[in-house]
């Protein structure tokens, strides 16, 4: 077992990939800087050389497109976007090209590219430095969208993403970087066999999250236990393709569902999860609840940020309301 935090676990994933897979290289802005991507890539350029760890021009589209192109030629590139917001410049490479390539060419070629986008919000960074756009990408057939919430997943899902033959959007969240855990050595599990996990069992209510919102659910579950409510926590981990069966089974037992999402409400991930459960013919003990961002851009002012982002107290309050109504 090795003690790591989430950021260093991502780095450990890169080390594993670069050590064992010569076809892996990494491309993106800030990879040679000390501060762009937290501690998640520290000194990789010095260990593996600047030909495998390529800091790049300020060209999200060409660089991401190049990563897609190289992935069609036997390489497994990882394209790093230090902020999701800037990734919008390369939507053609992701949505039109990578996501559809296999389908368009009849399954004869697969872009084995991983695109890492970092959610980096709070700290009064404002509307264009704070976005969590995972639901957008999860809407696109052909992309796999991975959101590690735990230290182990930060490492292991990165490895599974890069070794997957499909284009993968791997989204990590700077609010998780200080989480710590003891990790065993890497043991590979193919990405297509990975799916949601129950992080905590409970019988009274099902809490569902992805990425940072999973951590909020875990914290809320601990607080709810003290109030006599036994919450189950499910971490979605992979939101495209989305396997909702674990959530459906959990809600069949609990009859109560609260989905927490760091994205917006309209056409979002939380609504999708609730719809899947509803379609399964679940018998509700309380109306399902989703806690999302309000449908507004992220504010800059700290006072507004405190209103904007969902705190764990909001989850606790929402769950308690479910019980007061039933």
């Amino acid at each position, binding site marked *: 077992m090795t003690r790591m935090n989430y950021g260093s676990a991502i780095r450990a994933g890169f080390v594993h990939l670069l050590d064992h897979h010569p076809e892996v290289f990494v491309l993106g802005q800030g990879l040679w800087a000390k501060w762009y991507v937290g501690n998640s890539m520290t000194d990789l350029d010095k260990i593996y050389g600047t030909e495998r760890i390529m800091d790049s*021009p300020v060209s999200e589209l*060409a660089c991401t497109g190049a990563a897609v192109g190289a992935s069609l*030629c036997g390489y497994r590139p990882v394209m790093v976007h230090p902020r999701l917001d800037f990734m919008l410049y390369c939507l053609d490479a992701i949505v039109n090209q990578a996501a559809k390539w296999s*389908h*368009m060419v009849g399954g004869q*070629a697969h872009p084995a590219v991983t695109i890492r986008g970092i959610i980096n919000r709070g700290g009064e960074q404002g509307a264009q430095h704070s976005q969590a756009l995972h639901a957008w990408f999860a809407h696109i057939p052909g992309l796999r969208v991975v959101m590690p919430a735990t230290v182990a997943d930060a490492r292991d899902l990165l490895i599974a993403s890069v070794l997957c033959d499909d284009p993968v959007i791997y989204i990590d969240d700077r609010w998780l970087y200080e989480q710590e855990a003891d990790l065993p050595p890497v043991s590979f599990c193919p990405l297509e066999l990975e799916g949601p996990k129950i992080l905590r069992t409970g019988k009274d209510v099902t809490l569902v999250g992805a990425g940072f919102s999973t951590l909020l659910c875990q914290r809320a579950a601990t607080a709810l236990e003290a109030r006599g409510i036994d919450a189950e926590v499910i971490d979605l981990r992979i939101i495209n393709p989305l396997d909702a069966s674990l959530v459906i089974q959990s809600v069949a037992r609990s009859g109560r569902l609260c989905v927490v999402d760091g994205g917006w409400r309209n056409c979002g991930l939380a609504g999708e999860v609730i719809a899947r459960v509803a379609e399964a013919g679940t018998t509700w003990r309380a109306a399902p609840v989703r806690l999302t961002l309000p449908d507004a851009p992220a504010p800059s002012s700290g006072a507004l940020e405190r209103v904007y982002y969902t705190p764990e107290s909001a989850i606790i309050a929402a769950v308690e309301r479910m019980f007061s109504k039933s």
Partner: protein
Amino acid sequence: MNPAERATDLGDLTDPGKFTAPLAIGGASPALLLEQLRMMLRIRRVEEKIGDMVSAGKIACPCHLGIGQEAIAVGVSENLRATDRVFGGHRSHAHFLALGGEVYPLLAEILGRQDGCSHGMGGSMHLYDAAHGFAGSVPIVAGTVPLAAGAALAAKKDGKGGVAVAYFGDGAAEEGGVHEAMNLAAVWKLPLLFVCENNLFASHLHISLRQPSDSIGRYAEAHRIPVEVVDGNDVVAVAEATRKQVENMRLGGGPAFLEAVTYRWRGHVGPREDNDVGVNRGGDLVLWKGRDPVRRLVDALMAAALLDDAAYLRMVDAERLAVESAWARAEAAPFPPATALLDRVYAEGCRP
């Protein structure tokens, strides 16, 4: 607009009244010249057939024909290896065929059949033929140019002298991705050949209504990429310019840019000739047909006694028969199974 009134940095190359004489074939190998002719005839016959079948209602898929532009793909492709990676756009039938792609899988693809080069999943705008180095074409303008930069990066990492080719048009030069890719290729010294088929039109709109100059190579100069500008209707000139550029790229010389000035005889999409605006295309088109890349090579070969009428007609007929046969076979080919719809969204597995 009268051609003479147009501002031009390309000069006579855009004047359809010029460059109408038989090609200067100089010391080129007769066998190679005849092969170039055969390939241009094949491409033209395939595209004429496609146009006819669109008109007849037998093809539903949007088809962008490059009749009149055949010399560029043929001249470029003869300098490439099957292990090079070539990317195209919406008008890429010629790029596919000139590399050695067969007529039958192209026509089957356009008809949405399982035997198509993309197994019936792509149609005219999504061609693929890895065996001959055709890495793929897409209709998003400039969409494959960054991908070609990535293929060039892969070739550079492979270290075996491979190159990548990005075909695009003058309209694509108005997309930012082309400029980003040029910058990337220049700063990383990628073995990437940018081939701009400047046919003076983006969809319906003439270049004079879209850009302050008709030169696309000027952008490459700004990125310090060496540029060759050629008459795109001269297969010998295209082949010779490309040969030098590709040889240099294989030796690590970094990217190169070929601007081949040409003209498409048909409209942006479909078989009609008359759906463009911005110039009096009708008059220009008549003139440009006098600059026919096929006719000029035939005239040169005949003047040099390398070809006579009978041999030429035999070539034309052989290609016509081959295309008819491929078409009949394609029409009878099966469609993809319904399972293809979902089975091809993701690859099967992940690697341990």
